[in-house]
């Protein structure tokens, strides 16, 4: 038995799996600078932050670990490596992934956050390496990018063969891809788009937006074929949807369970599975689906038994997304006595959908059409409207709109989202500035006063409504 066996078992690995993967695990841990001295911290960190009484949660942690091992060893194992940013339009990455077993595609920074952050509690040195190499602190630069650059600089993750730049959403991401090119010579396939909708335009969108974004996706796929030396299979789009469909149907089942009072599982665990979907295109997805199936069964039992994370009758709030590297920050909301049955992703899946036009034929345009209808890459007002609509999915008492201070597209909603939702839903809204990747400046302790006050207000409101 090796020093890491217990931790990996805690994270849902079966004994047989550990044996089978042992050489890979050891090689990966060595590269990540993780040794026996780190095990006690990791063990207590995982137990402190996650509900490990649920096998599904343990398996989800394991799914992230498997994705990490695959990522760290991708170059050694002869894979052609493609990185995309987070969030991203997933279609192109998924299509590349299903087209060749020799291609490994993922969002490596998210993998590092969920493993080096959530499991090993060793993210800070990675962030600091990113800060020291082009993305300094104090400038509101994306901390997820600091993680990516830090991981590359420290040699933890391999230098990719190609970067897919999400130039349709984030200015920082594409420019940081330029930085990675300057540092490591990585070629970039820019998928450009312009979020130029007028306020109030959603759910409509101009056909030229679909055509432009679609053409850009097609061009990026062509470039990827050339750079990687692969051919995208004709049914790549259909194949790539298989994993997504299974994931979505499980999320829908989960959404039903989250309607229960008390809410059966913490948002901390929900985040593990929501983020996995947007970060992996490989084993993580399939392992995630298996883990979800176990988790769903466990949660059904909890609902039947009336077991939950907060007291029955606790005020219920919707948040955008949980913290990706430090669960204490997300847990704070529940610690203050608020139940979180709904996140943006969950509601996005389960809420009312805008149908894409469906008239496009190329893969790029089909993807672009779908994404613009889905709101996230349409514009700020589209996202806020989806929030409003989706809030009807579950009965809520309020919103915590937790925007990322260092993500411009997200921070665009810092003020207008609160005003809009309060006016449209008559529910209280806490606009909470934070950073979902790095908790050094936005720690649970620093956010406590705001969340606590909001929670007290919601509780008092609920109490007075009963009287």
């Amino acid at each position, binding site marked *: 038995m090796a020093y890491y066996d217990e931790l990996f078992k805690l994270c849902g690995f079966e004994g047989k799996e550990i044996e089978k993967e042992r050489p890979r695990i050891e090689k990966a841990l060595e590269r990540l600078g993780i040794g026996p001295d780190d095990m006690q911290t990791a063990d207590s960190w995982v137990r402190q932050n996650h509900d490990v009484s649920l096998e599904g949660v343990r398996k989800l942690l394991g799914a992230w670990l498997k994705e990490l091992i695959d990522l760290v060893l991708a170059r050694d194992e002869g894979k052609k490596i493609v990185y995309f940013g987070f969030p991203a339009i997933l279609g192109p990455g998924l299509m590349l992934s299903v087209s060749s077993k020799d291609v490994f595609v993922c969002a490596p920074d998210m993998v590092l956050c969920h493993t080096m952050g959530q499991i090993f509690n060793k993210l800070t040195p990675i962030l600091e390496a990113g800060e020291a190499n*082009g993305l300094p602190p104090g400038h509101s630069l994306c901390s997820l990018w600091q993680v990516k650059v830090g991981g590359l600089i420290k040699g933890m993750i391999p230098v990719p063969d190609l970067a897919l730049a999400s130039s349709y959403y984030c200015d920082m991401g594409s*420019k940081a891809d330029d930085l990675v090119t300057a540092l490591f010579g990585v070629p970039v396939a820019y998928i*450009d788009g312009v979020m130029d909708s007028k306020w109030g335009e959603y759910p409509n969108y101009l056909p030229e937006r679909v055509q432009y974004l679609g053409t850009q996706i097609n061009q990026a796929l062509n470039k990827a074929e050339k750079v990687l030396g692969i051919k995208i299979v004709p049914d790549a789009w259909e194949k790539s949807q298989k994993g997504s469909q299974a994931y979505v149907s499980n999320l829908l089942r989960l959404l039903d369970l989250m309607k229960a009072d008390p809410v059966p599982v913490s948002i901390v665990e929900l985040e593990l599975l929501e983020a996995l979907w947007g970060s992996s295109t490989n084993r993580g997805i399939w392992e995630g689906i298996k883990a979800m199936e176990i988790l769903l069964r466990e949660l059904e039992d909890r609902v039947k038994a009336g077991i939950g994370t907060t007291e029955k009758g606790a005020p219920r709030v919707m948040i955008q997304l949980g913290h990706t590297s430090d669960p204490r920050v997300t847990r704070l909301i529940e610690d203050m006595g608020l139940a979180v049955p709904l996140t943006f992703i969950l509601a996005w899946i389960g809420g009312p959908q805008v149908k894409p036009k469906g008239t496009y034929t190329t893969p790029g345009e089909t993807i672009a059409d779908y994404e613009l209808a889905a709101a996230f890459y349409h514009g*700020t007002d589209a996202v806020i409207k989806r929030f409003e609509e989706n809030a009807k999915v579950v009965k809520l008492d309020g919103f915590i709109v937790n*925007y990322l201070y260092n993500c*411009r597209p997200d921070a665009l909603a810092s*003020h*207008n989202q609160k005003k809009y939702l309060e006016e449209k839903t008559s529910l209280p809204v806490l606009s909470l500035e934070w950073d979902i990747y790095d908790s050094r400046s936005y720690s649970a302790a620093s956010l406590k006063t705001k969340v606590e006050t909001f929670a007290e207000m919601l509780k008092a409101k609920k109490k007075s409504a009963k009287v």
Partner: protein
Amino acid sequence: MKALDKLDSHIKTRLTDLSKAKEQGRKIIGYTAGGYLPEELILACDAIPVCFIQAGDNAILKDAGHYICRWFDPFWRSQIGYLTSGKDPYYTIVNLIVIPITDNHVRAFSNTVGYYTPEVESFVFGVPHTKDKSALEYYLQGISRLKKKLEDFTGVEISESRLKQSIQLCNRERELFRQISLMRKSENFAVTSKDFVALNHGSFLAEKEVMVEILESFVEEVKDSAPLPKDAPRILFTGSTLAQGDSKVMDIIEAAGGVVVMEEFAEGIRPYWGKVKLESDLMANLAESYFMDRVCPGWFRPGTERLDFLVKLARDYNVAGMIWYQLMYRESYKVESYFFPDILRKETGLNMLTLESEYDAMETGPMKTRIETFIEIIRR
């Protein structure tokens, strides 16, 4: 200089002139900075273009703070502040605001117009961040929608001949700016950067015909002016935005004995290197010139075209150093400022000083020390 005096008095009465024009039924079209709006389209429908370029006052950021968090470029937060507070009269006089969306900082402004001031009529179109055939087509579609909007809004058809006439006028303005700028390649030049920037800023507000006359006078006058000191280190001054009212860095450079011979800014300096062709499809020509031919700003990806251009400018203008002036939280410029100094040094042997601002008076002291030291070093 008489030309600058004329510009000064023209701008002093500009608001009154605009009010009168508005009363007479002419439309005033405000537009946001960045150089992606072809003024030709506005002029061709007998409307008056006004570009919003005021910033540099930290106090206005407090007004903006009611609408957006602080993590956005202070220039664009200033625009939000001026729009919502009414403290910049140019914002209250316009009939329509046109917003070419370049990056998320501009979207912050666009969202504010759309959500908080729905009574202000606005029109947005997108500027792609990469240059290829599909991007050019997208830009052309955007300005074509704008053309239609302007025709509907003003009731004036933008005919081929009207458009041609306005292109000729704007070409003349660009040509004059280019001519003045090129004078500074020589060692015996008499154009101060402050004058050049003042002409630029004035041109965003002035009546186009008047501006062309002023530039023509300036060209003549400057030929007879005494040249600037030859021993002063020649500086290439670059960044995202050089707003009207943001002269702090230029003042310090001048006081420290440096002389700016070239300003390369995406917002606040008019793109003047290109010329719109007058043959065949004029709309396509506008798109070609404003989007493809123009050297892109830092938020294009990749940013190599602009960085190569900076190296070329450094050589062509024989500069002794570069000052890179970026505004806080404009991430595209911040990230490039990390890896560009190595490229510059490798290509030209020159050093670069990076400065950042949030229009805060507290910055002046440290900036002064850094600029003085930099000039001291490059003077040797």
